[in-house]
């Protein structure tokens, strides 16, 4: 029997599929995503909103999922890294990160790619400075960002060709 006080009926869309779950109201979106649908591609690097490793898109907006309560996402559309390559085809940002060496250890990669997607959505042809500013909420310790910038630039070209 569900505890009415300590339970919240969450209704969200995750990667295009509806997810209904009775959750504890205090859990974060990050905890929910990793534990309930088991989407462990979203990473926890700091739990204070500084590193960006837990970035997901909520209604298209990049959000640090460690700072958002799962309940706050009620009724919204959530995109995680697992939702980027439906049917096995890589998203252009994924393909570009691979071909250009935009990832090393891979721990920041999910959040970095999702932030880049949101950036390219609002600014399809960003300059280098705009890419750097757009990604500055996501820390990467391995790459020095050079090849991430190159990858985002390539993805921007690929995406604009598709339009």
């Amino acid at each position, binding site marked *: 029997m569900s505890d009415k006080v300590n339970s919240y009926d969450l209704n969200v869309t995750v990667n295009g599929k509806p997810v209904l779950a009775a959750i504890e109201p205090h859990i974060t979106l990050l905890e929910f995503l990793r534990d309930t649908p088991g989407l462990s591609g979203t990473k926890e690097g700091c739990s204070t909103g*500084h590193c960006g490793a837990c970035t997901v898109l909520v209604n298209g907006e990049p959000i640090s999922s460690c700072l958002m309560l799962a309940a706050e996402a009620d009724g919204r559309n959530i995109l995680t890294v697992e939702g980027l390559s439906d049917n096995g085809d890589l998203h252009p940002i994924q393909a570009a990160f691979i071909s250009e060496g935009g990832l*090393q*250890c891979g721990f920041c990669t999910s959040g970095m790619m999702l932030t880049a997607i949101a950036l390219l959505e609002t600014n399809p042809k960003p300059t280098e400075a705009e890419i750097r500013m757009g*990604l500055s*909420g*996501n820390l*990467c310790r391995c790459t020095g960002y*050079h090849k991430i910038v190159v990858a985002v630039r390539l993805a921007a070209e690929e995406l604009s060709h598709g339009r």
Partner: protein
Amino acid sequence: MADKKAVGQSLPRIDAMEKVRGQAIFAADIKLPGLIVGKFLPSPHAHAEILAIDTSKAETLPGVRAVITASDVPDTAVYNPASRFHGFLARRFAVFAGQAIAAVAADDLATAEEALDLIEVTYQLLPVVHSFEEALRPDCVPVMHGSATASGDSTAHTQVIITDKNSAGSDEEIDRSPNVADENVFSHGDLESAFAQSDAIVEYSYTVPTVHQGYIEPHAVTAHWDRPDHVTVWECVQGAFDARNLIAETLGMPHGKITLNSTEIGGGFGGKGEGIFAPLAVLLAKKAGRPVQLVLTRQEELIGANPAPCSLIRLKAGATQDGSLTAVEADILVDAGAFPTGWIMSNITATLRDNYRFQAWHLRGREVLTNKASVTSYRAPGSPNLSFAIESHIDELAHRLGINPMSFRQQNVIRKGDPLTNMEPQSPIGAEEVLAALAKHPAWTQPAYERLGVDGLLHGRGLALGSWAGGTGPAGALAILDAGGQIRIVLGTVDLSGSFTSLAQIAADAIGTSYDQVVISKASPDFAPFAPMSAGSQTIYAMGAAVKEAALDLRAKIFHYVAHDFQVNENELGVDEKGVYLLAQPSKRHAFETLYQLGTQWFAEYGPLVGQGSAPQRQRAPGYAACIADVTVNPRTGKVNVNHLAVAQDVGKAINPLLIEGQMQGGVTQSISMALWEELLYDQEGQVRNPSLLDYRMPTAGDVPMIDTIIVEVPGGDGPYGAKLVGEPPMVPAVAAVANAVTAAIGARVCDLPITPERIWRALHRVNSED
């Protein structure tokens, strides 16, 4: 032979597909039935005696499954107070703030945190040793409690090395302070007369603060006692064998009772060598009778998880008017935190002068204990610290003598056969070549900006050279001809930096088949021959040699069987991506798949095809890198902008240029950050004042420029296909190149890192008031 050689190709990472799809399993992604949460109680005090710990309230909290203290460490473990590994749980004394005092395992994180609040600890506070000055005072408080050796000798294991019998390094120099854990002295030549003949002498003291490796993935470990006397561990570590050793040593367990699975690792940079928190999870899981997962928070990382040491280097060096370096004298202090490191200070002391020819030197290094988190490696440990000092000094000498800093370095740079500090001859190196590559690069040949630009900003360009001797193995690997004709490489190495991609390239070329034919299977130490830690830039150099040897052994065995089968000599055979064939008649062939079948089916004529590689220690093959940094400084705010950075590195032979560029760009960025932004701040109570990623400032994409990489290939060493070390050398020079560029811009030298706006303002103010 396959159409195209794999070695030398810029191939994407072998693990890229699972990583961009979020499918790679990192340590915190491990889930087991019945898994519960581990959490430790950090000491609030940097130095205290633990008089009592009352865990009774925590134990009775519903949902708590185990509470442990030092009394739960098995008697079979021989405690060594000089080992930071044994400090995973405080015994009678807490020696740094953040050291674990007790730990709990509970059904969920909230319960575990609540239980920690219920543990009552009675502390007797002790004076905190927070600085070199405190540590070295005659009436200092010893940081280490108990003797380091079974014989009861002094805690300091002083070591003096004299490399020239006519010179100093006398017995009186031994520092018997209880907080000096280690001391090295290297002396050579007549220092006094070498300084006397110098036309320029520079003396400065350089400080580098404590910095953190800053991997984005915090330490995480899961322990599961699957049999009463056997534990299986999943952990993000750089060395699986080393992590197993650590658990065996600290808990007094036989190695055979520990299965250590190294997971994907979200960055390590030296900070996750052996994994220092596994013993907590192992003890908790044993007591709880449930699998336990312990994941550090970022705050716990920055406070207690083995940062890189701060250092003070007092340096004096001279040169003559014709540009020849004469003598160098250094007094080096390295803050190890609460436990000796054993070698970071030694690396700084022994290699400080190794990039240049000096006639005489006197180098003294001391490793000092303080009540701070114990330190460990960070990408070329100690070398950025020494590079900042010596490369600043080299620039300063060149400036005072009116010599171009590039030609000054080219004139004095060490060459093959020159004596190193330990008097061994220098190996074949690429030091001259990386300087030459930069000397003709636009970053150097373009005319320098006017110091004060029309934009009102101060412009400066700086150069620096750096090196790293690195690790040299040994290592073992297996090459197996597997079903489907795949070449399966079995090894116990952790892929820290893309090395599995390059190892597959090495194996493909050794066999003569295609890269796609090769699979790398990481195995735990239960199933793999010995692998050295993925540290010291040795993975391609040392493990690559073992993989190549295993692949060649497999190829030889395949050829032996096919030659026998075809009734020909082995030299009449060729190999391509499909299999082995007769050179004179390429249609006569055995596919790899067929060879697998022939070696595994019932009534097989021969056994399964397995090649082994057992590569001994390699020769030294030090890696050299040089950097040019171009900066602007806003004289009103003191803000530094790095506009451009070029790095040239000798890699021997580039196995995978794409991945090497990534290593160079990443290492350079960490080094820039050390120059300008990063510092763990400790107060007088030994508390970290900035334990968050907001206040501990790591660079974002917006802080750093595009980084030009120039890969240089100079023969040397005995690595596979001529490869040398890659990962660490680029970390070394950039810190000094940025510092030299800032000096060129502001006309004054900042000798304390990081070069903050405040320090720049003070330096500018000092210069202006002198004008």
